[in-house]
């Protein structure tokens, strides 16, 4: 649920990075955190990580400039990807305004991507939101692995698996190197702010 503060002229939106375990959601946030100036971002909060896995969520607040006199403030969240944390994922999705679905290209994780997207759809439905109606972009991460000997999925296979119905904007990325990270963020921020502004007639 976006917050529009007419007194301070601010729009606050919540964007959630969703995807199967170890697909690189937290890596996206860490790259954004390092790449942005301290003025444009708040402190990154990471809760209860065990090894390199997120157990609750990560949070990174950003200040993305202004649109029509409104300051745009975005809070980026990640969800834990592991199957057992379904309840936590649903909790983090409360009040979500936009989603980046991060897909893992490893061939062995093909079904996990599909299951995670289906889980996203179910969790949103339980919160009264339709997946087709919320701004979403797909990020096909870890493209650097395609040059290794590990069996991976091509972009067209990932797109066919995950985006044939959604028809959402899609981006290739190597989050560890920052490739595609800001392209995905820019796209989802634009879509999200536009939808919030349009719904509330702030662009009239």
């Amino acid at each position: 649920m976006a917050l529009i503060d007419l007194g301070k002229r601010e729009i606050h939106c919540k964007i959630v990075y969703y995807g199967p375990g170890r697909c690189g959601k937290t890596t996206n946030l860490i790259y954004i955190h390092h790449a942005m100036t301290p003025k444009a971002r708040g402190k990154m909060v990471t809760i209860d990580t065990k090894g390199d896995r997120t157990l609750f969520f990560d949070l990174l607040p950003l200040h993305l400039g202004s649109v029509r006199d409104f300051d745009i403030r975005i809070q980026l969240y990640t969800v834990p990807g592991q199957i057992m944390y379904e309840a936590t994922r649903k909790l983090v999705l409360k009040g979500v305004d936009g989603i980046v679905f991060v897909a893992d290209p490893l061939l062995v994780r093909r079904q996990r991507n599909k299951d995670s997207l289906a889980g996203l759809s179910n969790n949103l439905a339980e919160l009264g939101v339709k997946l087709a109606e919320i701004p979403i972009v797909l990020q096909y991460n870890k493209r650097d692995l395609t040059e290794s000997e590990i069996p991976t999925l091509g972009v067209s296979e990932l797109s066919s698996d995950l985006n044939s119905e959604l028809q959402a904007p899609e981006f290739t990325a190597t989050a560890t190197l920052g490739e595609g990270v800001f392209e995905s963020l820019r796209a989802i921020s634009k879509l999200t702010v536009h939808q919030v502004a349009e719904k509330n007639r702030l662009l009239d």
Partner: protein
Amino acid sequence: MASFILTPKKVNAVHELIDDKLIRAGVKKVMIIDEAGNIITECGHDPAITDPTALAALTAANFGATAQIARLIGEEDFTLLFHKGENSSMYFLRLDEELIMLSIFSDEVSLGLIRCRADELLTPVKNILKGSDNGIN
């Protein structure tokens, strides 16, 4: 999903009520947040709070997590939470299904007083924030 629209009139009316009931009673800081972790508005000042954004996000998550605990004992939700610290304590009260009020206070202020005053604020604050500007005197 509907957006939450906050007008200066609503903010002023809520601040007046919170100042009168809680800040003057010695509460250091009061924040009203939503379940998405957004800060709707805040009153008072506590120099120990350097990252209110994280505080709001964690409070929302805390409420969500304890709601899961509540279900394990056959309850739908816990409507209030209290965390006791050595110097500062926190009292959380759910105003409705979306809004949470948190008060931060020192051990010089009694928990009983905070509970009574926060309960008195529950309905008027909720009505102001969820109603229209026309309903505010």
